[in-house]
């Protein structure tokens, strides 16, 4: 029977990769996404515009403006000359952040008094605004520290695994998992629906292949696609983007295989409850969008409300991303990753057996 299974798998590849368009659809998006997203998906603030209303004009404010303009966060300084204009720069989204130096700013500072200054940020983009304000605040603190007496103690910050807090180091390992998701799910979920629409499914069912074999035949290509796409992005991350790779390659591959199995389970489950390609596709989508959101990629899971934390427990992506990050940044070995690997396997077993049950019911 193993040889028959092999034939089934070969056929699956031939069907999936045989059509030029379908092939392009599996390859092109991966390349494009690997090229674009690491640059796009960043929460850093760079090249933004800072609006300044300098009522003061003293030496301190000029010095500070000078320093602000030299940070990477602000590439453009917009000088305005009244409060209304300052507000308008925010209203019109011309500036992310607006700073007003009050009339007595320099005088206060020279006199050793606390010098208040007002920072306005755009609440429509409050996250970026806060981050930008954080950068500005660092500039101010440094300036104050230089002028003031030496502090008795300091706070030293060290960022482990990613010393410069480079966002790409965070995004690329996550993308290995996220981009892989689409290809694997689409291939597994839609292929059964397509066979059903095209009538070839019946032809398989009357053959000596049992439902379990048919499912295995569908799962293996999905897993393979996950592993191949994932490895491609991983290689691009390590060589193209220069990420350090400190963990073990076998772990990375094992992680991808387990993740692929979990996804194949989900994909097959979706396909066994949908009647046609359209439903399967929308089902994939309905699974994928929340799965990415809840994976901890955009925001940490521990910050979510309880309910969503529970949902995230069932999200295979929330295990795969830490494995990938562990491999790249944290020098993970199997021992470190075991607590992430077994949940993936558990998800795979649950979804695959559920899909098989539904399959059998559908057939009989």
């Amino acid at each position, binding site marked *: 029977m193993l*040889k028959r299974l*092999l034939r089934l798998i070969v056929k699956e590849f031939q069907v999936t990769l045989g059509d030029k368009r379908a092939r392009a659809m599996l390859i092109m998006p991966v390349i494009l996404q690997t090229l674009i997203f690491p640059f796009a998906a960043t929460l850093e603030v760079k090249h933004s515009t800072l609006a300044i209303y300098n009522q003061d004009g003293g030496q301190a404010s000029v010095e500070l403006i000078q320093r602000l303009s030299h940070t990477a966060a602000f590439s453009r300084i917009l000088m305005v000359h009244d409060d209304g204009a300052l507000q308008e720069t925010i209203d019109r989204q011309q500036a992310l952040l607006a700073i007003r130096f009050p009339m007595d700013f320099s005088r206060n500072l020279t006199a050793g008094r606390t010098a208040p200054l007002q920072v306005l940020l755009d609440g429509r983009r409050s996250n970026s605004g806060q981050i930008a304000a954080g950068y500005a605040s660092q500039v101010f603190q440094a300036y104050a520290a230089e002028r003031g007496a030496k502090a008795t103690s300091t706070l030293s910050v060290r960022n482990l695994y990613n010393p410069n807090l480079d966002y790409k180091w965070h995004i690329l390992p996550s993308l290995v998992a996220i981009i892989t998701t689409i290809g694997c799910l689409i291939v597994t979920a839609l292929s059964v629906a397509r066979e059903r629409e095209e009538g070839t499914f*019946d*032809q*398989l069912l009357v053959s*000596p292949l049992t439902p379990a074999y048919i499912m295995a035949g569908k799962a293996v290509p999905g897993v393979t696609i996950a592993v191949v796409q994932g490895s491609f992005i991983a290689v691009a991350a390590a060589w193209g983007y220069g990420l350090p790779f400190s963990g073990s390659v076998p772990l990375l591959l094992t992680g991808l295989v387990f993740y692929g199995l979990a996804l194949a389970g989900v994909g097959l489950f979706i396909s066994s409850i949908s009647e046609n390609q359209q439903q399967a596709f929308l089902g994939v989508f309905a699974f994928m969008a929340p799965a990415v959101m809840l994976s901890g990629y955009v925001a940490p899971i521990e910050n979510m409300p309880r309910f969503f934390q529970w949902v995230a427990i069932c999200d295979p992506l929330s295990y795969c991303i830490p494995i990938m990050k562990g491999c790249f940044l944290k020098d993970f070995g199997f021992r470190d990753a075991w607590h992430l690997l077994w949940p993936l396997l558990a998800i795979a077993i649950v979804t695959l057996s559920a899909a098989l049950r539904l399959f059998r019911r559908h*057939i009989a």
Partner: protein
Amino acid sequence: MIPAPTDQDLTIEVHDLVKRFHAEGPAALDQVSTGVAHGSITGLVGPDGAGKTTLLRTMAGLLMPTSGTVRILGLDPFRQGNLLREKIGYMPQKFGLYEDLTVLENLDLYADLRNVTGEERRRSFEKMLAFTDLAPFTARFAGKLSGGMKQKLGLACSLLGSPQVLLLDEPGVGVDPISRRELWRMVRELAQGGMTVVWSTAYLDEAELCDDVRLMNHGRVMASGAPKTLLGLLEGRCLHVANLAGHRREVLRRALNAPEVMDGTIQGANVRLLLREAGRRPDLASLEAGPAATLVEVEPHLEDAFISLLGGGPGGDSALSKVMPRVELDPHTDPHAVIEARRLSKRFGDFTATDDVSFRVSKGEVFGLLGPNGAGKSTTFKMECGLLKPSEGQALVMGIDLKSSPSEARQRLGYMAQKFSLYAQLTVMKNLVFFSGIYGLEEERQRVKIQQMVEAFALEPFLDTLTGELPLGFKQRLALACAVMHEPQLIFLDEPTSGVDPVTRREFWTHINGLAQKGVTVMVTTHFMDEAEYCDRIGLIYRGRLIALGTPDELKQGVATPDRPNPTMEDAFIELVQGADR
């Protein structure tokens, strides 16, 4: 043979029409010139890939001619389509209505699209619904209609707005004889009202009823004229072997192997032969048809003309059966119940699709399952091959219940689905490799078997062609090849010849006969009544019930009356179905 279209009454004029889909590729239509007279029904016949659909689509303005002209009612369908579309009705081959809309919603849509409103709309709906007998089903979703009803609804939709020209692309495919007769009756009435109809069909008995026929092959019109005039060449070439004793299929096989015989079929109790030349008859003794057998000259049919123009049918011996081993059943298997239905029922909700059906099929028997569209024969069929679970009763194959079972039983059966069901995206070779592979053929055995299939079905030139791009006839051949490669002991064929031209159909039945001779048990469904004659026994299913079971002769005899002492299979079919209604 092409008559110059001089007639002033020509509604459709085609001049030197060429259509190529790829600049370098072969012409789908090659210098076609023809005309269609006003108020006539013109039949378009020809084998698969002859260019019938392309011609109709070009007439409907859906394809741009590569060169040449088409004029319908004096208008160019491609450039003046806007003016013309209101005047023509077109029914594509594939059911083109919305399955998620009800019958009435479909009608409403097309009425609005064709600007049929107010009183005219009310009247035409009334007429159409009466015409098609769809009145009780107006609220039913089109997707839930039976095949025949779908075709009738499709026809009704294309008739809205009283078009002057009606283009029909194989409306009879997959439709049972009763519905086909009704379709024909509808169209005939319309033509009498002055409508010009072009009707493409694979049924030559249908084409024979047309006023005019265009026989196409390789993108050219090979012959045109009234059916009667086309038959002139066949004078004296059609014979019946009457009063024969012994097995008709065997007689036919021997006859087809005779050099004098071009083609042959089973027709009722007789075997019908088409000779190569009028004078040269085969030696009656060599046919071994019994002492009383005689050769009687009969009227030629259009089908004979068709076969004759295409160079004759296949020989009597199946290349397939030569490479099939003789079936040896498991000693435990009852040879009289290789396939068995025991009080089989299937309900979907409160609808009973199959209702208490029982039958047994013996080893080497060809068992035909007939019935109108939607009568439940597909359901019965699917239960027998394990694709549907019976609500009650048992579907047994070699004494084994397939639903509980096991791959070993499935290993011994072959299945060819009604809908084309091979991987269209794969090449012919890859399909062969795949299907032989999942049945466990490996290496040398697989290679040899594939080679045998390629030879038996003449697939050599297509090995690297994508299966989806094959002509229909070859698709069906490949499907059969894939179903028999693992040398099954029994085989299920669900409408294997639907939409296929007569020559290919002959070939199929030669194979089926050949398989049966080797002891393969065959269960087959069909809408072609002449094919039903090839079966050893027939089960007629209507409204889920098995209303008749017997040999073709028994069924026919059952409906014989003094006015109709020799009913055809079609007569028997209609009579039995209508009898069940009474």
